[in-house]
């Protein structure tokens, strides 16, 4: 048995089958009611609509319980991986269930708002599934056996080393490196804003800019000075390469988390819109 099993392949796609069965049943019943032309078209208020609506609403509540289940380490109510697998497949089946529930009727109202919120939650969930399946592999490749911590240690060592080398060079070079080092720290380049974390590589990184200027300046030097300058360029390039890898690591970490900043708050908005939808429908029955 493979050590790692994707949550999409959990128990040979057990919940994929459940979800497909659910969708097929819903489509079948809807089709059965759609056929005679003079029949009232199924919609939210027909018995078919009430049935599909109840199933979909209970499903949404259950899907949101994943947030509770994954925090209950002592729970024996199925494995979290099983829950996550069912979460993905049954959550996707909501697209069919909710669309048939409303009978393809949409408008500028809270009922369609709930539908749109649901679709946004599902879409962000799709990105989450993609991130969980794709990025760990890319992250392993990027780290190449190292960890974020060791890379950061190396950056810090290299900066110390560069400072020492720069001491042997003219003031202008020394000043250039020192300001780049200070700017990097000030910009808090490795943490950065959400936008910069997601961007991955910072082309305007002070160290990269300083390195490129140093290469230009290096043409003026000769002899030992040129050698030392070359050494500094090599070390600074290593810093830039390392920080790029760190950034890429941070970008993957950010991508693995950022979708949840949409998925979770939107799903709570959806829950409330769903409550409003159900109450409003019966309030003015």
């Amino acid at each position, binding site marked *: 048995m493979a050590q790692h099993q994707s949550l999409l392949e959990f128990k040979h796609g057990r919940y994929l089958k459940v979800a497909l069965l659910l969708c097929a049943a819903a489509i079948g019943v809807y089709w059965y009611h759609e056929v005679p032309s003079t029949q009232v078209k199924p919609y939210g208020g027909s018995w078919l609509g009430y049935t599909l609506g109840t199933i979909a609403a209970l499903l949404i509540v259950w899907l949101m319980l994943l947030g509770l289940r994954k925090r209950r380490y002592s729970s024996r109510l199925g494995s979290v991986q099983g829950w996550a697998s069912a979460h993905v497949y049954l959550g996707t089946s909501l697209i069919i269930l909710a669309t048939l529930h409303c009978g393809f009727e949409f408008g500028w109202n809270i009922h369609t708002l709930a539908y749109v919120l649901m679709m946004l939650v599902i879409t962000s969930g799709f990105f989450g599934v993609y991130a969980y399946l794709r990025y760990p592999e890319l992250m392993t490749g990027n780290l190449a056996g190292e960890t974020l911590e060791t890379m950061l240690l190396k950056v810090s060592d290299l900066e110390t080393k560069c400072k020492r080398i720069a001491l042997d060079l003219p003031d202008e070079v020394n000043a250039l490196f020192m300001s780049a080092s200070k700017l990097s720290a000030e910009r808090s380049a490795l943490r950065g804003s959400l936008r910069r974390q997601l961007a991955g590589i910072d082309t305007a990184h002070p160290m990269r800019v300083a390195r490129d200027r140093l290469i230009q300046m290096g043409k003026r030097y000769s002899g030992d000075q040129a050698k030392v300058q070359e050494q500094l360029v090599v070390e600074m390039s290593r810093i830039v390469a390392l920080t790029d890898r760190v950034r890429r690591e941070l970008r993957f970490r950010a991508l693995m988390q950022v979708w949840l900043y949409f998925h979770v708050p939107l799903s709570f*908005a959806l829950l409330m819109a769903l409550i409003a939808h159900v109450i409003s429908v019966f309030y003015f029955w």
Partner: protein
Amino acid sequence: MDIQVTYITVNRRGQPQRDQQRVAGPTVILGRGTQCQIHLPDPRIALQHAEITVGESEATIKADAGRIQVNGRSVDGAKLTVGDSVEVGPYLLEVEAPPAGVPLAVSVKLVVPLASFGGDGRRFQLQAPRLSKRRLSYIAALGTLLICLLAPIAPDMLGYSTLQPATATRDTTEHMVRTVSDRLVQTWNPGPVSQAHQPFGTDCRKCHQFPFVQVRDLSCVACHKSIKEHVPVASLTGPKGHAFQDIRCAECHRDHKGQQMAPRAQDECAVCHRDVKVYTADPKTGNATDFYSDHPQFQLALLDADKPDAVRRVRQAQPAPPEMVERSNLKFSHKVHLDPRGVRDPAGRQDAKAKARAEDTRTVMICADCHEPNEGGRLILPVSFEDHCQRCHSLSFEPGAPRRQAAHGDVEKVATMLREFYARLVLGDVPAGVTPPRDLPRMRPGAVLTSGERRASLQAADQKANQALNELFTEQPEKPREVCIKCHQVSRKAGGAGWDVAPVRFARVWMPESLFSHAKHATEDCVKCHDVKRSGKASDIAMPDIAVCRQCHVGARPVEGKVTSDCSLCHKFHAGKNFWHEELQAQLQPRGKK
């Protein structure tokens, strides 16, 4: 082939300490891993960072998973000679002069100690500034709840009366709350209301009077006062019959579906009409579930001319039942009138051949000559003698006055009119275009009559009038022309004074309950449904039966090339006699109390 390795460390007092070791060659590995012969325990070092190989004459260093710099140059491998310095991560290796018997001696020194680096993992977790997922979730959830649910129902929760519009209140808070609520509650509307309900605009409570209570019939009949019941509530029997009377208007009439209310499903009719006896002890209709597959023959409403108030309901059948005749007291033949050679018509045409043979002029008649649709086009106007018959069937009574015709419809009027006509001629007052008959005595103009002469003259006129009346109303063996008796049943009154014309009644609406419209069938030939070409008698009935309708109409299930027809295409639901709001009022009276 050993290598002498000297680890240089710094003791507590800052003095260097040398710790010499011998490791077995020829190849030794430098790295973080504990299996490495030169163990460099630092996270910045790779597991197997580099290796040193000692040969007979020379020693080399080669980078493995890590990077090395020999004398300041980044290299993959290099020969080691005494005095070389090799940077391995934070360590500095220096090649020293080896003691006798050892090919290589190196010293290892940690030159860049591990900084107290803030290795706090959480520092690199994604953090949207000041917004955690939890906080975002609260904002999204509470915002949605407020806008979508709490604000719209705020007036009810705060106990404001919604009977008056928001603008009518003087309370500022109430005005504001209700204005906002009225706007937001529009987002609850699941679809546009039907055109007929547009005047209610945005006032949900016009129909939805009470929260969590379905729209009640009283809301509907507040406006729809003239709506009739389906059947009298009193005629419903049995538990299912009583359940039927509790069906709300809105269960069939679904609004918020656009311009029109949602159409009714014929399955809803079939629930009761599959076996209507379950719902009423006295069914007035046969059972039916679908026009094509399960529908009885039509029932016609027939009239008897001799029983003015009676309507006979006769169901069509094959062969036709004996009572399927119209008793109109009229004599008429469609076959004669629709003769393809035409009927004799004084104002008709004739071709040259017919003219040469001195035949009568003729006209070929079509249905529309007599049967015209009414203003709405749904029904056919009644045939009238004056408009449709008289052109050919002249009521002239005096050959000398061909343009004078007897009035139609009243025997007494005709008698009076004739007497007055002949009296006028006798008295010498001859209108233009009239040639007085020769057998009528006529006084000379300007003569003064004695009373005896005058009486005799008028008697002669009356006699002539009676003769003419006799010719109109009775069969004249010597004269082929029939006037009244051509179409009517005429009998002499008891005592011989005058005639009785049998009253005429014929059906105009054969299926009074049906929504049939001639206008919608204008593309079809009349005879496709009304087969009158072989009908020789007025008692014949030419109403199509259900088989004729089914040539084009199928039931609720669509069939290519046919017209899909559900119950409501031909039937009215609210076809009862009583007003529904009166039935409701009766139901609302406390039961069981006298």
